[in-house]
């Protein structure tokens, strides 16, 4: 899109807005097959893929926004909405299902008053159901991701999951 550059400073402003992404783009923008890597990095920095971010990546890489959107919506990892400070990844793998993951989900939803994919009003928790965390012997399991790192909780019960969430909320 650089051939259609306008005369104002908007291009510079956008570059400033996405300065944190510059090293990644510098490394990968011209390497074929790197779109997923770039999107992963962008999501790691900004927490989600905003329309602005998608447009900016398109501008730098020359990949059409529609295609980026297509890739971003194909894979489970990418989010198009901002998330809370703590991301609850509730495992819905087979072992967790058999051991009552639905019950745990009900408990979380009731306790936080949100559904799968939603964020609490105070912006602390987002709930995401995921396919399998690979900790099947500890089912039911959830992983809580935040800037402090990832913490996995196993052998959950309707009550223990509430206790875990309350403890996190106190820390937040």
């Amino acid at each position, binding site marked *: 899109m650089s051939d259609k550059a306008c005369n104002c400073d908007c291009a510079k402003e956008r570059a400033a807005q996405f300065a944190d992404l510059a090293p990644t783009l510098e490394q990968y923008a011209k390497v074929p097959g790197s779109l997923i890597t770039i999107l992963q990095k962008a999501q790691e920095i900004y927490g989600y893929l905003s329309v602005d971010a998608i447009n900016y990546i398109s501008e730098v890489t020359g990949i059409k926004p529609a295609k980026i959107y297509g*890739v971003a919506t194909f894979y489970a990892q990418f989010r198009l909405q901002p998330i809370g400070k703590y991301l609850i990844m509730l495992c*819905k793998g087979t*072992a967790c299902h*058999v*051991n009552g993951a639905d019950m745990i989900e009900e408990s979380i939803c009731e306790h936080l008053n949100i559904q799968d994919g939603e964020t609490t009003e105070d912006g602390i928790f987002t709930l995401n159901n*995921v396919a399998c965390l690979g900790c099947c012997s500890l089912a039911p399991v959830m992983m809580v991701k935040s800037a402090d790192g990832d913490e996995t909780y*196993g052998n959950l019960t309707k009550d223990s999951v509430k206790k875990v969430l309350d403890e996190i909320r106190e820390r937040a």
Partner: protein
Amino acid sequence: MRVVVGQGSCGVATGARKTAAELEKQIAAKGLDIPVSVTGCVGTCYLEPIVDVYDDNDELTRYVKVQPDKVERIVEEHLAGGKPVVEDAISEEDKQFVLKQQRVVLRNCGVINPEDIEDYIAVDGYKAIEKVLKEMKPEDVIEEIKVSGLRGRGGAGFPTWFKWNAAKASPGKEKYIVCNADEGDPGAFMDRSVLEGDPHSLLEGMIIGGYAMGAIEGIIYCRAEYPLAIKRLEIAMAQAREKGFLGKNIFGSGWDFDIRIKAGAGAFVCGEETALIASLEGERGMPRLKPPFPAAKGYWQKPTNINNVETFANVPWIIYNGGAAFAQFGTEKSAGTKVFALAGKIKKGGLVEVPMGMTIREVIFGIGGGIKNDKEFKAVQMGGPSGGCVPASLVDTPVTYEDITKTGAIVGSGGMIVMDEDTCMVDMARYFLNFTRDESCGKCNYCRIGTKRMLEILERITRGEGKDGDIELLEELANKIKDGSMCGLGQTAPNPVLTTIRYFRNEYEDHIYNKKCTAKSCKALITYNITDACKGCTLCARNCPVDAISGNVKEVHVIDHDKCIKCGKCMDHCKFGAIVKE
């Protein structure tokens, strides 16, 4: 003396890091000079966190379920006093969980420190690749793998030597070897365990494969959900490069080869080779028609070979010990050992590696200790969403590719989810269809729309709205989806439904005609009632979120079924077992 703490993902989830920190603190407080190091998952997940103490003669005492409060005593009596704490050590019975296994893939998991290459070298690590580069031609390597009878451990069970040979025979200098570490089957976690516990064996296997087929680069396509695995792989690769096992002129052979990691972004369909390649190229992971096979035209249209983690982890052992040694295990057509992930309603869940040909009964009851809470064994789900449910009546089936396929399930990547009398088989079928419907890439109509229609019927049945003809319609759709889909996902997606209809047709019929869920699991088909055992303590009434329970103090209470939302809270709170689910 030294102390080792198991810190695979499951160990960490049960608090192994806190235990390790407490150990270090207490050891320092006592002024002892005993190192605390890390190891991967030993496979006995039900005993985590696990602490191994090796005395000066390298004699092992294994402590299990070591929460921080147990640390003080172990440090005081064993580390300082030299007397093992017998009560906290592993029982003789639990020792059998590992002793009954035959470990090839998991040989180093839970033994070595995965973050230290010297540990791997000390157990003959990188000796196989040295032997290959100094003594063997690529065709010798392929021949050795052929002798071993190794078949792909990711699901399809295709002979590994054949794929390597095809990639080797393809013309062109630019070839790639790819490791599928995108363990997507819900319920399988052996690849995670190898990645976290023994990353060097995967690297060595890939280097050997790369040499055999003449690859210039290796790529590991790893799940983003496995952050610890990615971290340990990165450490392992850096150490291997430093030692000259990766990079230019490996072992002075003049041959250059390096490996990089590409993090997957979460798509089950990427287990299919052509979809995985599309994803590596930054595209949506959608499969394409074969041929051309990846061995001819793969990554960037160049010859490419893809194997999964477990397959590669077998390779160094096979080369070092000889293909014939590997073929000794297992049966003629299903050679070697296979790792199974035992989970679900099982007493001792974890990773089990056994020679192929062992019966399901030996795995579940002999090693896994049987069913949790001694309930009745109903079925075992094998092969994940592409597999099926093997019923209790077939528990003596030997676990080989051929025998399991005959039951309608598949060995697949090795997930074994055990189910008991409380698991509803119609609900299991619904669960898997929901998964495959979600993960269908949408390219083939039959898979995209067919799985959705099947799911709708199954949802209807579990809601108690099943109709006459539903079972036949499910079967018809299932067969059409199998025939009309291009890739393995669609071709196998109906398997969980077909196998449950085949073995548990009565449960489907109960749901449809009698509006009854035998396992008492489908909410719409159960009712809660209060029996005469009720003491009138009012606890249930006070905890009912919809005020559906009434009754006077010290009198038997009653549930209003019109109001009841079947949340089960009353049953959880009742101290007298007076509430029954019917």
